[in-house]
């Protein structure tokens, strides 16, 4: 019994571009491209969008970002530190990161900029500041100070780290 071949969904064209389709799908697309102007047009459009995104440059964080990340004072982690911080409002948290707060830490940030440059730019010598202590201290302090971002931390660790 002769039967018309099932036409794959149009999304096979993206899979074709990405090398993610089956051999049968690839053969079907090749056949369509040889005979169908519409298929060629759609493929060209999808390829244009794909190439445009792939051509986007790497994005650099503002220079002060890495310095700020390392600027927190390392503090001992309290034994009774809460493991699940209470949810907070991000807008409020951002207000707390207002210029006034950063002005007070300006000297520390400037010093940390030097540290960040040493750490983030490849160096012939290995520099290992106590970043772990910084981040632990940040996580705990943030949870105690209602930092919105850190409040999310415990929610997805298990989902994110296990394949």
């Amino acid at each position, binding site marked *: 019994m002769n039967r018309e071949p099932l036409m794959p969904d149009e999304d096979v064209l993206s899979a074709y571009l990405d090398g993610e389709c089956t051999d049968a799908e690839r053969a079907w697309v090749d056949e369509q491209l040889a005979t169908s102007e519409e298929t060629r047009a759609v493929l060209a459009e999808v390829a244009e969008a794909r190439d445009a995104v792939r051509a986007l*440059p790497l994005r650099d*964080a*503002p220079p002060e970002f890495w310095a700020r990340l390392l600027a927190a004072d390392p503090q001992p982690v309290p034994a009774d530190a809460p493991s699940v911080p209470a949810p907070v409002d*991000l807008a409020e948290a951002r207000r707390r990161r207002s210029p006034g707060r950063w002005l007070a830490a300006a000297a520390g940030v400037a010093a940390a900029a030097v540290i960040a440059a040493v750490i983030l730019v490849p160096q012939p010598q290995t520099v290992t500041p106590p970043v772990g202590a910084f*981040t632990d201290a940040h996580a705990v302090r943030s949870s105690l100070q209602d930092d919105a971002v*850190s409040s999310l931390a415990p929610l997805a660790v298990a989902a*994110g*780290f*296990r394949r």
Partner: protein
Amino acid sequence: MTDGVPTWEEVARDHGRFMYTVAYRLAGNDEDAQDLVQEALIRVRRGLERYEPGSLQGWLARIVTNVFLDEVRRRRRRPTAALPDDPERVLPPSPGADEVSTQLSDDIQAALAALPEEFRVPVVLCDVADQSYEQIAASLGIPVGTVRSRLHRGRRMLRTMLSEGAA
């Protein structure tokens, strides 16, 4: 690095820019991208002990994506904060006659940011983070066929927005 497992410092130094790029393409602005990377690095630090050597960038992209999706869900529960795909957050690019390349990147970024999150995430993971469909499906907890469909639709929407913007 011990037994193929990088230190936190090595991750930040060698892959911080990659993480920031993925975060920025997902979030659409620097402020949110900084929050995402900061949180992602905290999770990286916590998870390094359990990291099994493999595709480090895939693992990092997955963590950044999880942080982003958590934040999107959180903001949906608190509608007073703008969502990353809120059209008002997609600012028109600043015109600059001598910055054609930057202008083009801005146009693409604006179109990307205007995509609904369900389409933007697969596009970013595939075309920015260079993840396979299988990896994207695992990250998002959806079937590979859904990844394929959303990716294709996202690209078609992007193409439409870019052509309309150029018109």
